[in-house]
């Protein structure tokens, strides 16, 4: 007797094989399958945590927000209708939770962060100056070695409004398309373009400002 397609997919899921269909995963989670829930969390936890951490800029808050995100995902998985991708849906929950969290926080650290950014070390500034003056295409592998430069970029990112920050993180770190960003943030495509443009311009200005 031949196995049905669904049964084969179930086997793949249970044996944690490479191909895991998000729709099937969502359905099994909705049925209360604990193994599927664990698969879902394991599959997306790093990406979700990374985005949240880059938006809220705090490891402890990011861990709690990631946890809250998956709890909310599992509690509401039966409401996932499959109109968008599962990961888009999960990211929407995560980003909304994080942005709301950031808005609730009293931004007492903003001025100190701004001051800290303006008073960056000479080595960092020199590294940034070289980087910006280089006419060649930026080499990702080379950038990955320049921790000071990353630190500056992270600080400059943290100074942005969370709505701009979310757009640029989803695009440049999570590599989402404009359409996906629009779905995650539930924005018009034009708004995504506008916000992304303003976010990069703000970053550019911040980075160039410390070079002066």
């Amino acid at each position, binding site marked *: 007797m031949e196995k049905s397609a669904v049964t084969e997919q179930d086997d793949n899921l249970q044996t944690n094989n490479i191909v895991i269909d998000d729709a099937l995963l969502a359905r099994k989670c909705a049925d209360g399958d604990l193994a599927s829930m664990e698969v879902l969390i394991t599959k997306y936890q790093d990406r979700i945590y990374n985005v949240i951490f880059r938006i809220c800029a705090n490891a402890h808050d990011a861990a709690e927000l990631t946890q809250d995100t998956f709890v909310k995902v599992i509690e509401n998985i039966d409401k996932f209708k499959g109109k968008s991708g599962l990961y888009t849906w999960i990211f929407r929950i995560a980003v909304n939770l994080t942005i709301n969290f950031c808005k609730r926080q009293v931004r007492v650290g903003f001025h100190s962060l701004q001051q800290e950014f303006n008073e960056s070390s000479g080595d960092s500034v020199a590294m940034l100056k070289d980087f910006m003056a280089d*006419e060649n295409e930026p080499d*990702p592998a080379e950038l*990955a070695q320049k921790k000071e430069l990353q630190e500056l970029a992270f600080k400059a990112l943290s100074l942005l409004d969370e709505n701009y920050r979310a757009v640029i993180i989803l695009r440049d770190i999570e590599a989402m398309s404009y359409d996906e960003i629009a779905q995650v943030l539930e924005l018009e495509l034009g708004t995504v*373009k506008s916000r992304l443009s303003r976010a990069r*311009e703000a970053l550019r200005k911040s980075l160039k400002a410390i070079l002066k």
Partner: protein
Amino acid sequence: MNDKRRINNEQLLNAYIDGELSEREKTQVKRLIDHDEQLRARLAELRKVKAVVGALPTVSAPSTILDEVRASLERKMILNEYNSSVDETQGARHLMLRRISAAAAIIVLVGVLGVIVYNIVRVPPQKIPDLNDPVGGGIAINDYGAVEDGGSDISNTAAAVNVRPLVMELTMLSDSQLNASRVVSNAIYNHALLEYTIPKRTPSRSQYIISCTRRQAMSLLTDLSEQWDSLGTASLQVNFSEPREEVQVPDVTAGQVAGILAARDRIERLKLARDYTTLNRMQNVITKNSEDSLSPSADNLKPVQPRMTSGQGERDSRRNIPELKDNQSHPVKLTITLEQGE
């Protein structure tokens, strides 16, 4: 216009480096930057910004995330089970019980308040007649007792409500006021009228103000009729109201008193009292004339006494005490005054 174009160019450059443009748009951007050094410099800076953000290292989630999520879900599951087992039915029942209790409390409170307010604002009850008022004053009474079928005297109070008491004053003039007083007081005691009697005594005078029912008064008179002669000379004053009138019946007998007491209504009572008054006066006159004209040896030649055809006028016989047929609980204020004769 320039601002709008600049913004458009900015968005176009960003879309260009993000690979979000169509081939035609890419060609357009390439043409622009080839001819505009400033745009070309801006494009380079945007690429660097994008690169430096993209170069931020990916951070991994803490290894505890999975366990934390699982624990959180378990806590919520337990909480939901507890809530569903407790608050759905028990909560509703408790709420219903509280609502019923509150409603009952409000009803009781409103009832109590209603009684209080009623007692405050209601018209005061009609005054208990002042039975010492000899007129009887047309005052309604509302707590006279009545003996019905041998029951308590303080029953049938409702029947006595708004009924004018019959006011009669019986005065006895006897040689031995003390002896007469003993007879009357014994009769009052024997008919359990002590609690309805106000005695007043002086060395030469005893008075009993009896507030009772017609039946009780009749019973008392029946008892007294057996010793009527020992009580001395009796006179009766009957007080009528509306119109106010007093009728004095001299030398009244127990039967006459009982007849007046048993009269059906005011008119009959007034007529009887007047008749008895006339009769007794005539008898006194005849007796006096006879005594004056006849020698003491002619005792057997007593004149024929006048009689009432109804038979109610017959003197001094217990069988002449009529029976009450109705209005037995009608209130009576009977004052018996015993005075020492000469």
